[in-house]
């Protein structure tokens, strides 16, 4: 009986180890040790990268001499506190775009799970036949580097001294900043109501703003309440304007009598630095046939911006905000090195867009 129990435990352990091996992509690795097709070569490389086995992934490259290994790892998991450093590669899809006997072009969709939600990264990769197997030619985009220099930063900073706990009654605090919602538009999308618009800080001090909306039905009954969460630039400098967007999933506009807006502002310490330039903004159609707003971000300060967040308001011919879109950039913003960004634009909205306004929110390790 004792021997039988030992055998059962041993067999169960073996089974669990085998299951873990299969789940970690071991079977796929084993099957594709020698990639017989371009797709297998890319899949093998991505599987190794997914399991952080970068030595094996790097060994799969055709152009190892041209690709720095640390840069190769950075391509997958970022650097300098960028969004990819807080991400893990959950899954990927690979499909061919073009192929012949010697080389092939493939597109890979990398699906990351990040600190701010899912992130899809599309990459076009080349594969080349190397004797009896295929290997991946990794793109060698040499990141531009800034020459050593001193960048003087002398922009303003606001600090706040609040009322102390020991102060007598009547010693007032400094007032909260005055903010104003300058536009609001409620629209029906396929599966939700979207409330969007813009808010301005009318005061002479920085404000931390949040915009909330309450959907009211007949008899002014509250049907739903939401806030703009991260679809707004929360810290607004004096006279700065930010778009906002509030989604109400599963709601229908016909059932709504009115919308009650609520803008809250708090006085916070803030800095006018860094200034981020948004260059070359234009609406394009991407490789998948979707409309996107693309551009370049340029950090004019000397500090690294870890996680840039782009929020774009789109206007129709009458200057009305008809859509607000946002997107996180997976790369950090190094000083004065442009980084491209793209945010989605629904096709039905794109036809009506006459102009747009982009603001850049940023999350920095130093300030957080």
């Amino acid at each position: 009986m004792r021997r039988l129990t030992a055998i059962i435990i041993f067999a169960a352990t073996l089974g669990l180890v085998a299951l873990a091996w299969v789940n970690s992509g071991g079977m796929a690795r084993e099957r594709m040790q020698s990639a017989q097709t371009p797709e297998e070569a890319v899949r093998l490389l991505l599987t190794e990268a997914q399991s952080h086995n970068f030595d094996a992934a790097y060994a799969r490259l055709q152009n190892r001499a041209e690709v720095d290994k640390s840069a190769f790892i950075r391509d997958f998991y970022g650097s300098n506190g960028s969004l990819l450093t807080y991400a893990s590669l959950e899954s990927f899809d690979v499909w061919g775009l073009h192929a012949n006997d010697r080389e092939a072009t493939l597109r890979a969709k990398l699906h990351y799970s990040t600190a701010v939600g899912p992130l899809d990264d599309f990459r076009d990769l080349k594969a080349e036949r190397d004797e009896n197997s295929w290997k991946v030619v990794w793109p060698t985009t040499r990141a531009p580097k800034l020459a050593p220099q001193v960048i003087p930063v002398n922009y303003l900073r606001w600090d706040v001294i609040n009322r102390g706990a020991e102060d007598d009654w009547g010693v007032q605090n400094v007032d909260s900043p005055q903010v104003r919602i300058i536009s609001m538009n409620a629209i029906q999308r396929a599966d939700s109501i979207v409330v969007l618009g813009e808010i301005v800080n009318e005061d002479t001090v920085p404000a931390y703003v949040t915009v909330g909306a309450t959907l009211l039905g007949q008899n002014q009954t509250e049907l739903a309440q939401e806030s703009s969460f991260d679809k707004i630039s929360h810290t607004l400098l004096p006279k700065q304007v930010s778009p906002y967007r509030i989604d109400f999933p599963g709601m229908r506009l016909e059932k709504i009598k009115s919308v009650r807006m609520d803008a809250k502002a708090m006085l916070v310490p803030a800095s006018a630095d860094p200034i981020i330039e948004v260059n070359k903004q234009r609406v394009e159609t991407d490789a998948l046939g979707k409309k996107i707003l693309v551009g370049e971000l340029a950090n004019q300060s000397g500090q690294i911006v870890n996680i840039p967040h782009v929020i774009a308001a789109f206007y129709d011919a009458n200057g009305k905000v008809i859509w607000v879109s946002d997107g996180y950039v997976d790369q950090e913003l190094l000083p004065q090195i442009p980084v491209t960004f793209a945010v989605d634009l629904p096709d039905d909205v794109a036809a009506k867009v006459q102009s747009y306004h982009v603001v850049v929110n940023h999350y920095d390790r130093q300030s957080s």
Partner: protein
Amino acid sequence: MTGKAHRMRDILRSLAMLAAFATPAFAAEVHPPTQVTAGASFSMPSSGTGQGTLYLIGPANLSKRQVTLGGDIPVEGDEVEHAGRYTAILCTDQCVASTFYVHANSADRLSLLVHPSRVPVSDPNAISAVAFVWDAYHNLVLSPVNVKFTVNPTEHASLSEGRTTSNGIAWIGLTSAAKSGPANLEASIGNLSEVRVVQQVASDACNLRIHGSSSARKIMVETDPVRDCSGNFVPDGTVVSFTLTDAAGKTTVDVPIKKGVAKVEIPAVGRARITAASGVVTGNELDMTGGGE
């Protein structure tokens, strides 16, 4: 409710019943003055002989002590620091209650509420100042007192106006000055005074104008000194949004004003149109050629 509060309520209920069912004709009595000043010692004449128990019940305190009847019963100032209605109950075989009122002492401190702490220039009745007059024991001084409100702007002579308190409160509405800068707002009674600072700030930018020059691959754009319609400089840190449209697309950059102007270098190729805005105020348009053309 706490156990202590329950006990206090029971004591008060018992005392009230004692007082209600007492027969004053045969009982010792106490005769407090009708009006007493908060924090001031006084005495209450009493009738009867022998010893009795005095309960003194005020708005925020309760005391009990043995007293000798037939003479003046002294009450210390710290027993009557809180203004309001007091009940003195003197108990021998029976209990007799008398009431008296404690009024606030003379003004000893001021609380000044000024709102807002920042106000745009030339805004009528935008500043409100409310003064509360207290005695040394935190009682609101309800008798009328004249409070002097004084505004001390940085570049003008002081302005003063008096207001008489009503129920301990005096208030005044003020129009902000046309010149930006801090203004000290003071409320005073005799030697007592309290000061608050109101920051009078420039209004929205008025007649926002930009000019520029181009160099290789860049256009330098700068605002004229940004002022409001009263001629005050808009505070540094106020954001001016520059927008440049050229063949490569649109470029936007939010630049804070520094030393009165906002300036930026924007990469541009060929013909470019540049606009500027600060909040909801827009400036002039500028057509320039970048890229060294």
